[in-house]
C-alpha cells in the first residue's frame, strides 16, 4: 500500500483544495522593479522609438536642452529653473529628491558632475527641471494659535532633500534606470524617487 492509497483526500477535501485561488496579482510596481534590475544587468534593452524624428521629438529635444541649460544656470546661481512644457508629451514625470544621508561626501567639485549629468538627461529629452536647495527652510504650520512661520536649518537632517530633479520616463523602471546613474549616489547620497501624481 502506498501513501497515496492510504491517504487519498476525500471528495470534500479535494473540492476545498480546488477552490483555493492559484493566482494572485503581484504588487503593481513589481514588474517595473524587475525590469529595472534586468536592464541594469544588461539582460533587457529598453524599447526604442523607431523611425524618423518627428516634429514632436524635435520640439522635445529642444525643450529638454533648454531645461538642461536652465538647470545649469539654477545650479550655479541658485535661481529657479523653469521647465518648458512640450505639448503632447504624455510620459509620466518623476521627482528625484536628493538626500545626503550619513556617508555623503560634500565635495566642492560635485556641481560640475551633476550639471554634466543633467545636460545628458536634457539631450535625451528626459530632464524637466533640477535645482540645488539652500540649507535654510521656512516651516509654515497652522495650529491652535494660528499660523506659525519659523526658519529651520536643515543642516544634518539626513532625509531632508538638498536638491531635486524632475525627469520624464516611460515608466518606473526607466525612471529607476535613470536615477541609478545620478552622481549623487556615487558620493554616498540617497535618492528618493517619487512618481508625480498628475491630478
Amino acid at each position, binding site marked *: 500500500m502506498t501513501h497515496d492509497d492510504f491517504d487519498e483526500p476525500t471528495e470534500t477535501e479535494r473540492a476545498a483544495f480546488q477552490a483555493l485561488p492559484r493566482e494572485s496579482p503581484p504588487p503593481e510596481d513589481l514588474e517595473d522593479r524587475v*525590469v529595472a534590475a*534586468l536592464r541594469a544587468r544588461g539582460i533587457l534593452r529598453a524599447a526604442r522609438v523607431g523611425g524618423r524624428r518627428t516634429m514632436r521629438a524635435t520640439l522635445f529635444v529642444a525643450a529638454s536642452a533648454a531645461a538642461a541649460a536652465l538647470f545649469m544656470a539654477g545650479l550655479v546661481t541658485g535661481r529657479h529653473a523653469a521647465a518648458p512644457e512640450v505639448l503632447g508629451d504624455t510620459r509620466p514625470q518623476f521627482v528625484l529628491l536628493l538626500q545626503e544621508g550619513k556617508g555623503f561626501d560634500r565635495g566642492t567639485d560635485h556641481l560640475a558632475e551633476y550639471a554634466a549629468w543633467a545636460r545628458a538627461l536634457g539631450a535625451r529629452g528626459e530632464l524637466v527641471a533640477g535645482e540645488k536647495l539652500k540649507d535654510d527652510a521656512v516651516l509654515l504650520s497652522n495650529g491652535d494659535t494660528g499660523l506659525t512661520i519659523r526658519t529651520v536649518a536643515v543642516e544634518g537632517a539626513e532625509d531632508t532633500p538638498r536638491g531635486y530633479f524632475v525627469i520624464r520616463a516611460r515608466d518606473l523602471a526607466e525612471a529607476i534606470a535613470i536615477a541609478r546613474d545620478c552622481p549623487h549616489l556615487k558620493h554616498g547620497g540617497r535618492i528618493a524617487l517619487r512618481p508625480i501624481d498628475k491630478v
Partner: protein
Amino acid sequence: MNADDDRALVTAILSSGDEAAFRALFRRHSPSLYSLARRLLGWASADAEDAVQETWIRASERLESFRWQSALRTWLSGILVNRCRELRRRVAPAFGTPPEDEEAVEPADDVLRMDLERAIAALPDGYRDVVVLHDVDGYTHDDIARLLDIDTGTSKSQLSRARQALRAALAKGRTGESRRTHGERP
C-alpha cells in the same frame, strides 16, 4: 497556457533583450508565482515579492541554459521554491494573514477556505511545501521530487503526513468553533 507562446517570448528576450517580450512573460506567470510564494512563506507579502523578483532575475540570467525539458512554469517554480527556502532559512518567520477578499465565494465556502489557508500556513515548512505544490498547484510527486531535491517516496510520505496534520488542525478548529457556539470554553 500555450507553451509555444512561452518559447516565442523567451526567444525574443534571448535574441534581442526584448523588454516587451519579457513583460508579457512576467504578466503571464507572475500571478501564479506570487500566489505560490505567499503560501510557501506563510503569507509574508514582502518576502513573497522578494522571492518573485529574485526568481525572475535568476531565471533571466540562466534563460539560455533552459532546455525545455519541463514546462517553463515548472522551471520558474523550482527557482521560486529554492528562493523561498533560502528566505525561510535567513529570516525569522513573518507570518501574515491569508487575504479574505481575493475571490468572490459563498460565505460558507469562504470560511472553509480561510480555515484551510490558515491550517496550511501553520504546517511545518516541509509539509507545507509538498501539500501546496501537490494539492493546490497540482504538481506530480516526480515534479516535486525534482523541485525540492528529494526523492519521490519522501514527497509521498510528506504529503501523507501533511494531510493528516491538516485534518487534525481543521477538526480542532471545528471543535473549538462548536464549543464557542455552545458557550463552552475552547
